């Protein structure tokens, strides 16, 4: 035990106050000044709770059941509210996972940055202004003055995360807690933000507690790793050592779950492509809102591509590059403004025509978000059964097919009557996959099917998917921005940037000898982890190279949200007469 430890957590247990259920059990660890510590573990293992408990910011429903936390030698539970507030922000800073909700949408950036300074640093207004502009510049915000006046919604996700970082680092805390700070960002931006964070921490001698389930990131940047599973610390140690030679079975399992490249699959040559897309163009209609006149936005500029029967074609690209749009257009969920799709050599034509119907029944889709792609009010069996609706099966046949589909995705028949919220994320995605393949389609579009899942679950779902694909031989368009995943599943890869295909080729061509700059940037963003003989992993740089500029994520997310809010206000509509 190091007496100078910045943080010392000793036997910390947390429980749900109402039920007494333990969510964190006797966790002990230390963080030394200036040290970079990573916490990894599956979803729900208590990472966030531990981190929040350090600042006594655990949710009201969660109660400390035992153990102690000392920060700079002082027991945080013994601090008076005032002392605690001095620690919060002043000595410990925190960056959250979701850039969209971690900044106050109704406050200007200046106010949000200044707030902390006013609290913790006794400096004048001019000095504060200087500090803020300095820090914003350091995190790479261009027009600083303008940025200070702006509201959060005027920035892309990556920018917001930088601003978030700036607001925390401005106070020069001794410890920075980063709870999955980059999960919501695309690979290129992710790299930039993490490097910025680590860079700042290094120069300011700030210790960092980085929570992530992205092992390659943890492996790349941290000094030490803590592995958590089901509320307990199962293993901790220096990063390199732990990665190279994991001791605990859970750690091994975790490392084992890293996607890796498999030998290329042999695809039987076919007389013609199953799906052929020619000159596909999609425009998003102008949304003319209250205060602006929108103009039509072109999201796809004449895409050509072909998918062979049985082939997995991966579509990669930064956020906003048009991957989802492409997938949805091919699935017929968007009407293209130009170009056409042929299925099995026949143009699919208009909605309602026989060719369209044939295509519709043979083209299925798996969505990114397992929580929203299943109707919360339908049992699993009903959801899967619905996809068989158009097959004219007897009830008994249908039941049998549903059971079969469930079995295929590794869910026991006892899951039949559960509702989506009674399943874990991974299980839900299995259901979604079962629903898509139950009808034996010849073509499946999968839009980021695993990006919402944690490492171990992701590996299982990917295996399952590969297995099903091999068994039923459907062709697949696999959309993802996670290169590691693509590397594992794809036969061929298409790289997109700003609505155009910039490069395509076989998986090995793209990964081993990328030609286009953008592809290179993408590949250089995140290192791969590759297994060592001893059951551990080591980092492998895909390419040596520079990263590209910030890719702007478009705003426009909140329109729906606002409308809902207005609707709900009607709850207070007064009665008929008073």
């Amino acid at each position, binding site marked *: 035990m190091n007496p100078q430890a910045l943080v010392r957590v000793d036997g910390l247990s947390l429980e749900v106050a109402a039920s007494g259920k333990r969510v964190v059990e006797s966790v002990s660890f230390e963080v030394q000044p200036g040290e970079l510590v990573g916490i990894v573990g599956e979803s729900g293992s208590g990472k966030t709770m531990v981190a929040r408990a350090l600042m006594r910011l655990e949710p009201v429903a969660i109660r400390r059941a035992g153990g102690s936390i000392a920060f700079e030698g002082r027991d945080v539970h013994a601090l008076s509210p005032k002392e605690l507030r001095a620690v919060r922000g002043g000595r410990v800073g*925190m960056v959250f996972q979701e850039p969209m909700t971690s900044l106050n949408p109704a406050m200007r950036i200046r106010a949000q940055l200044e707030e902390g300074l006013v609290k913790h640093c006794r400096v004048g207004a001019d000095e504060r202004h200087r500090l803020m502009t300095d820090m914003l510049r350091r995190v790479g915000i261009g027009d600083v003055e303008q940025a200070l006046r702006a509201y959060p919604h005027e920035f892309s996700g990556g920018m917001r995360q930088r601003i978030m970082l700036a607001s925390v680092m401005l106070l020069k805390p001794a410890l920075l807690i980063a709870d999955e700070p980059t999960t919501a960002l695309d690979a290129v931006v992710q790299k930039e933000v993490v490097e910025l964070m680590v860079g700042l921490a290094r120069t300011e001698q700030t210790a960092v507690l980085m929570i992530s389930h992205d092992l390659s990131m943890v492996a790349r940047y941290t000094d030490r790793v803590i592995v958590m599973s089901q509320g307990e610390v199962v293993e901790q140690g220096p990063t390199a050592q732990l990665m190279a030679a994991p001791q605990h079975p859970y750690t091994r399992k975790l490392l084992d779950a890293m996607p890796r490249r498999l030998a290329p699959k042999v695809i039987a040559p076919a007389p013609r492509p199953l799906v052929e897309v020619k000159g596909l163009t999609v425009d998003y209609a102008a949304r003319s809102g209250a205060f602006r006149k929108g103009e039509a936005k072109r999201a796809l500029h004449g895409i050509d591509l072909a998918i062979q029967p049985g082939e997995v074609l991966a579509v990669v690209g930064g956020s906003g590059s048009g991957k989802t749009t492409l997938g949805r257009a091919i699935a017929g969920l968007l009407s293209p403004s130009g170009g056409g799709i042929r299925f099995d050599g026949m143009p699919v034509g208009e909605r309602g025509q026989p060719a369209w119907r044939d295509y519709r029944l043979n083209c299925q889709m798996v969505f990114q978000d397992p929580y929203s792609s299943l109707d919360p009010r339908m049992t699993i069996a009903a959801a899967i059964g619905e996809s068989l609706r158009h097959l004219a099966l007897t009830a008994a046949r249908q039941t049998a097919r549903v059971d079969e589909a469930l079995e295929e995705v590794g869910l026991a028949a006892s899951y039949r009557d559960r509702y989506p919220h009674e399943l874990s994320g991974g299980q839900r995605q299995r259901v979604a996959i079962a629903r898509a393949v139950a009808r034996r389609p010849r073509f499946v579009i999968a839009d980021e099917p695993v990006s919402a899942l944690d490492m171990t679950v992701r590996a299982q779902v990917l295996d399952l998917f590969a297995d099903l694909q091999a068994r039923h031989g459907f062709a697949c368009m696999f959309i993802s921005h996670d290169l590691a995943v693509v590397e594992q599943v794809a036969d061929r890869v298409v790289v997109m940037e700003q609505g155009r295909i910039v490069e395509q080729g076989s998986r090995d061509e793209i990964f081993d000898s990328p030609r286009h700059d953008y592809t290179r940037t993408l590949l250089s963003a995140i290192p791969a982890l590759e297994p060592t003989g001893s059951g551990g992993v080591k980092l492998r740089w895909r390419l040596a190279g520079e990263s590209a500029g910030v890719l702007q994520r478009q705003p426009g997310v909140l329109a729906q949200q606002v409308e809902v809010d207005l609707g709900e*206000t009607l709850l207070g509509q*007064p009665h008929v007469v008073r």
Partner: protein
Amino acid sequence: MLSFIARRLAMAVPTLFIVSVAVFALVRLVPGDPASLMLGDLATPAALADLRHRLGLDQSLPQQYLTWLANLLHGDLGQSITSQQPVLPLVLDRFVISARIVLVAVLLAAFVAVPAGMVAAWRQDSAVDLAVVGLSTLLLSIPTFWLGLLVLLLFGLKLGWLPVVGYVGFAEAPGKALLYLLMPVLTLFLHEIGVVVRMARASTLEVLRLDYITHARAKGLSEGEVMWRHAFHNSFGPTWTLLGLVLGNLLGGIAVVETVFTIPGLGRLLVDSIFGRDYPVIQGCLLLIAFVYVLVNLVVDLLYPLFDPRVTAQ
């Protein structure tokens, strides 16, 4: 911006048209007419026919409507059947009186209810929360005609602090006018508290779950600062919209309060003219109420970005 306002106002035209047709049809569907009411149980058929003719009630309904519409387009809302005053100034006068009461009451209610709702949300499920929710439900569930009577008996009679009847216009004696407005305002205020608290509490609860609240705490802000600077702004939006709806709705609904406190306001005018079948006045009142409703909601929407800057971005 201006074109937005113009467009929103233009959107009100069909609404107002529907209101006028519906009102016209509805009030004439209702049996009873002003002529027989004016003559009462003594009406001879001859006298009734005379009066109906003079009031233009013997024309066909579409004809009456078209006449009314044509006059309306010239800015003429007609004449009250009972008091023979021109409708427009009559309705506007009464509107000013009601609007003042409603506005003051709702604003006061907001000032009390929003913080109360926020505190309840802040300490969700605590005794404070329970007390606030319970009290607001209780206030909500007392009809205003009872609440008004209680207020009247307490402050007017038992304590004798406030005048029981009468009304003084602001133009005449502002201080005295205020005195006469206190009880109706208090009654509406108590009632609206109930409505607003629940909304404020619910929307604060939504906001308190979000990351930036935790972030604000993580910055070392005190609970007061967190609630006021971070939670308030973001949770006020829906409450604000509700206030608009309440304002718009109350105008047509304060008849009861105006009756209890003898305030010559729009609500009483409306109810009186409904019971008295004073068609031009009913139509005038309703057009005004609908227009105000549209207008208030427009203003609410225009000011909404103050509480939620994201909305402008749309």
